[in-house]
């Protein structure tokens, strides 16, 4: 149980870590000052969530590692985040689309996790789900406004959706790690959340005048750690550089 639980907590923590990092790359470069502040706010929420999930992962592991050790000293194959969140920011529309697809799943997942039999998981989820409800309100609203904005913005948002849709399936793929934890009542079965997710995104994309891609092909390999994209390694070379270059220093 501990191995699976540790794995799963890494998935939660690494999603927040990698997505928060991606969002932080926007700081100072957003199209509008208010969006710059909002995107940094979201990034800050994710960094906070990372501390909680990786902190709990470290405790569960019991090897004396800290959340920072897990964030800064693991290599690509030990990361357990979804492929979706490691995708590069692209243009502002791609960033918002990636965020919306993630938020639409994340809010359902966290809602399920609030009912976990694991006390700490449930407690963290209860805290985090409030932030995430706000995230989806913002990303949904922006997807609609940019999708149904100008012809140019519409095209960019459709391209973003087509580009990112193949990364949606991984969020609902239940593997042996998750099976074990579902049976113990520790986590929700994400495959049962798909209908609610589809309803959410269909409604939004209809309002945004965007067309859902017809193929449901899904890339896998992020959360299992089997095969990440090439992008993750580059992200880690930046994020981990100081800790790697000056081992043992306190900052």
């Amino acid at each position, binding site marked *: 149980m501990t191995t699976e639980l540790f794995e799963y907590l890494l998935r939660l923590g690494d999603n927040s*870590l990698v997505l928060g*990092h991606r969002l*932080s*790359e926007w*700081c*100072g*470069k*957003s*199209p*509008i*000052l*208010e*969006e*710059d*502040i909002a995107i*940094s*706010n979201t*990034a*800050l929420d994710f*960094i*906070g969530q*990372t*501390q909680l999930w*990786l902190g709990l992962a470290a405790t569960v592991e019991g090897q004396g590692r800290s*959340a*920072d050790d897990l*964030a*800064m000293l693991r290599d690509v194959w030990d990361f357990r985040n979804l492929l979706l969140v490691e995708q590069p920011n692209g*243009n*502002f*529309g791609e960033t918002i689309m990636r965020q919306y697809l993630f938020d639409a799943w994340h809010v359902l997942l966290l809602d399920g996790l609030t009912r976990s039999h694991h006390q700490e998981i449930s407690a963290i989820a209860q805290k985090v789900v409030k932030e995430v409800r706000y995230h989806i309100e913002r990303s949904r609203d922006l997807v*609609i*406004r*940019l999708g*149904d*904005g*100008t012809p*140019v*913005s519409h095209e*960019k948002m459709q391209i973003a959706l087509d580009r990112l849709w193949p990364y949606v399936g991984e969020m609902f793929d239940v593997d042996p790690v998750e099976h074990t934890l579902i049976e113990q009542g520790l986590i929700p079965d994400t495959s049962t959340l798909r209908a609610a997710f589809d309803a959410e995104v269909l409604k939004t994309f209809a309002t945004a005048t965007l067309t859902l891609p017809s193929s449901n092909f899904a890339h896998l390999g992020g959360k299992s750690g089997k095969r990440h994209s090439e992008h993750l390694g580059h992200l880690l070379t*930046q*994020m981990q*550089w*100081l*800790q790697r270059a*000056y081992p*043992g*220093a*306190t*900052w």
Partner: protein
Amino acid sequence: MYAQMVTSDPRDETVEGQAFQARIDAGEKIEPRDWMPEGYRKTLIRQIGQHAHSEIVGQLPEGNWITRAPTLERKAILLAKVQDEAGHGLYLYCAAETLGVSRDEMTEMLLDGRMKYSSIFSYPTLTWADMGAVGWLVDGAAIMNQVPLQRTSYGPYARAMIRVCKEESFHQRQGFDIMMKMAKGTPAQKKMAQDALNRFWYPSLMMFGPSDKDSVHSAQSMAWKIKMNTNDELRQKFVDLTVPQAEYLGLTIPDPDLKWNEERGHYDYSEPDWSEFYDVLKGNGPCSVDRIETRKKAWDDGAWVREALMAHSEKQKTKVAAE
């Protein structure tokens, strides 16, 4: 300072102008709907605009290290700090807008070089210790200037400064905390800390602008109470406050002539190289071109987003009207 070498328009000698000056002398606040001399308005736009641009361009040297912050906590603190600076920019643009200039117009003026930002943000941040040095010295210097500006004559500017100052002192403490960790850390960290101080000391002194004797516009701005102290006063205050902090950190200020002057009750210090300062203001700072390029790219890349949001809100209005 964040607003350096702001050209001041001449005073208004008409009857209204004199009545206006009397209000300022009496310590009254000027509000957007009040009559004000054109020179006061134009000078304030230049000053507040430059201040706002400095907050925004100032995001970049620190933003440069967000993705390389050494721990999750440091990353959160730095990101929150840079986000605060964006917020300061926002308050200040709003204050300037009350004077009849839009944020977009001011942005265009920054990007095409008609408006300036503080010289300090044209310097590069090269190591993590620079995040400490910037918070400690740059935010520290900014506070020197901004605290008195809370009493400036223009109401919206004064109120923006009150909000800004609360956050700046927090930034300064966080910067000092990073410096402390570095200065007491490994030999490599200590070397980084000293190097950061070496590079940022004189540029920080330049933030206050040239010496009073060369500062041609100070007198009018001080009469209008949009400048509260002379450049040299503030610079001296900054040096006096910072020297003991450097000593506490065990770092050496890169000025062999720095010494306590018992008679004056102040530290004597060396002037920065003012020719370098003028070069930076002309756009020849080490990062001047990069900074404006980055801002311009953000502005240009974001054009479709701004247009889309406007188009969407127009569509919504039409829909509501049709219903």
